[in-house]
């Protein structure tokens, strides 16, 4: 009798096959998430560790790194401090980023208004696929076109070598245009229809409605799109590296050869010895790049929060 009761008790308490499967499945999927989070931390950890070692045990200070203009990490200046002035690259990166965003913004907003307000039919049929295709073109192809069309054109029109910030700006303009456009489109679509109806009912023309009502209501979304585009431009490496001229000098004008954080990284990291100061200085640039991408992320979050409160 006792024995039989025990059997029943054991059978009732035993986990079913389903329940075991459920636990295992949940654990596996949790593990996948954990791997992704660990990878994110590892990226920050490794790059920060490498990047910060420039500043420990050497005479290089953070201020030197950010403000000096001489970039030749293998050599030292008169007072024995290695020449790791990253200012030319910082100026180059911000230069191409801001200029291309400045150029792309009016086009992106114009195209988005065309797609949502003026002609949704043509917008959906032609402009939308065009934008999708532009996103899909690999960045090396943009770089190749920049090298074989944009650079000779600039050389022809303005003189000089043609390589420089202007060429980088044009290439990045086309690269970030689709990103900014599609985010602006979703921002404009999110504006409630009755806003437009109310404005039109007051006797406003279509342009007045767009300019005074729709665009203002969609401002946070549009700003997010622009910052996203800037983040993409800031981090783009190969297309820029191919057209910017790769001279670690403070750019004198828009058509003199310059360099960006990414271009110095791609051309330099293979030519330096791991652990040397030359190499560590490059990792400091990578760390700067990482922090900037984090900053762009924070800005979009901040805009999103401010926009949501209204």
């Amino acid at each position: 009798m006792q024995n039989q009761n025990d059997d029943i008790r054991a059978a009732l308490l035993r986990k079913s096959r389903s329940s075991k499967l459920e636990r295992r499945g949940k654990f596996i999927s949790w593990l996948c998430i954990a791997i992704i989070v660990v990878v994110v931390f590892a990226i920050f950890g490794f790059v920060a560790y490498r990047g910060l070692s420039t500043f420990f045990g050497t005479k290089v200070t953070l201020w030197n790194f950010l403000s000096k203009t001489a970039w030749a990490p293998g050599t030292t200046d008169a007072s024995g401090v290695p020449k790791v002035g990253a200012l030319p690259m910082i100026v180059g990166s911000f230069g191409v980023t801001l200029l291309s965003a400045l150029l792309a913004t009016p086009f992106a907003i114009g195209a988005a208004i065309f797609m949502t307000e003026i002609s949704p039919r043509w917008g959906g049929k032609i402009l939308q696929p065009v934008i999708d295709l532009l996103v899909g073109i690999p960045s090396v192809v943009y770089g190749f076109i920049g090298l074989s069309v944009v650079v000779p054109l600039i050389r022809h029109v303005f003189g000089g070598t043609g390589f420089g910030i202007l060429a980088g700006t044009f290439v990045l303009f086309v690269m970030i245009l689709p990103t900014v456009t599609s985010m602006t489109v979703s921002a404009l679509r999110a504006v409630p229809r009755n806003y437009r109806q109310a404005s039109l009912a007051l006797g406003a023309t279509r342009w007045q409605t767009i300019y005074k009502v729709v665009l203002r209501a969609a401002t946070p979304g549009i700003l997010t799109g622009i910052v996203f585009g800037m983040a993409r431009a800031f981090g783009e490496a190969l297309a820029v590296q191919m057209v910017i001229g790769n001279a670690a000098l403070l750019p004198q004008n828009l058509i003199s050869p310059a360099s960006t954080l990414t271009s110095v990284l791609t051309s330099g990291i293979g030519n330096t010895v791991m652990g040397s100061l030359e190499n560590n200085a490059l990792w400091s640039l990578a760390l700067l790049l990482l922090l900037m991408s984090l900053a762009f992320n924070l800005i979009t979050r901040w805009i999103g929060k401010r926009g949501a409160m209204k």
Partner: protein
Amino acid sequence: MTAKRADKIATIILDVIAGVIVLILASLLGYILVRGLPEVSWHFLTSPSKAFSSGGGIGIQLFNSFYLLLLSMLISLPLAMGAGIYLAEYSKPSFATDFVRTAIEILSSLPSVVVGLFGFLVFVLQFQIGFSILSGALTLTVFNLPLLTRNIEDALRQVDFAQREAGLALGLSRWETVLRIVIPEALPGIISGVVLSAGRVFGEAAALIYTAGQSAPALNFADWNPASISSPLSPMRPAETLAVHIWKINSEGIQPDASAVSAGASAVLILAVLLFNFAARFLGNKLHKKITAG
């Protein structure tokens, strides 16, 4: 200026902007195809590249691109699937979930060159895998995971909640419900997400130059033993992909026909990416019709 005239002028300006954008794409595609397609021949697609003389092809690079794509998808798809399932089915709104989402968002916004450098540091140097297909595939996995995870999560969330209730009411566990009911229903969305990310991976170069390497050693296409270093299947050999090849010959190449080769290679790359885009749309629609009997 009256309001009506301003309206007319604004409309014209907007039309012009839309036209300019279409023109930009048309001239980009036109330029690449007109310059590139005449270079593309069977010989160009199959013969190995030449470093110093003209007449080189892109055969090995093309094979490397596809093989690398396949390997990185084999690694990233199960991971992204698991992560997507967790986020869509198991996660509850909490601080930890928010944190995970933020981490994924940050990962997706990292510049690909930073991901490439991380791969170089960890896979190539730390794990001592060297410049190889395996290092490249692992790096591309890092690059691909966040977007693929988000695609899969979105696809799973599109599935009607009643489907899950039905599964649970039949006595299935949640895991079984996900596997047998939710995933088949979400399959079209998942597949178009996978194909789209394949296009992105196929054209990626910045993450690969310091992980999969910039050289394409000769391959012996008669040797299919993955352990042999000259075999096309060997994951331990350095492998320059098509996108890296275009960058390489344009920035430091000394072939006399560098621009012709890169035009041809760009045309092939663009056609492949376009193919991925159309395939994503076509497969998604087709599968959806088949599964929903619509």
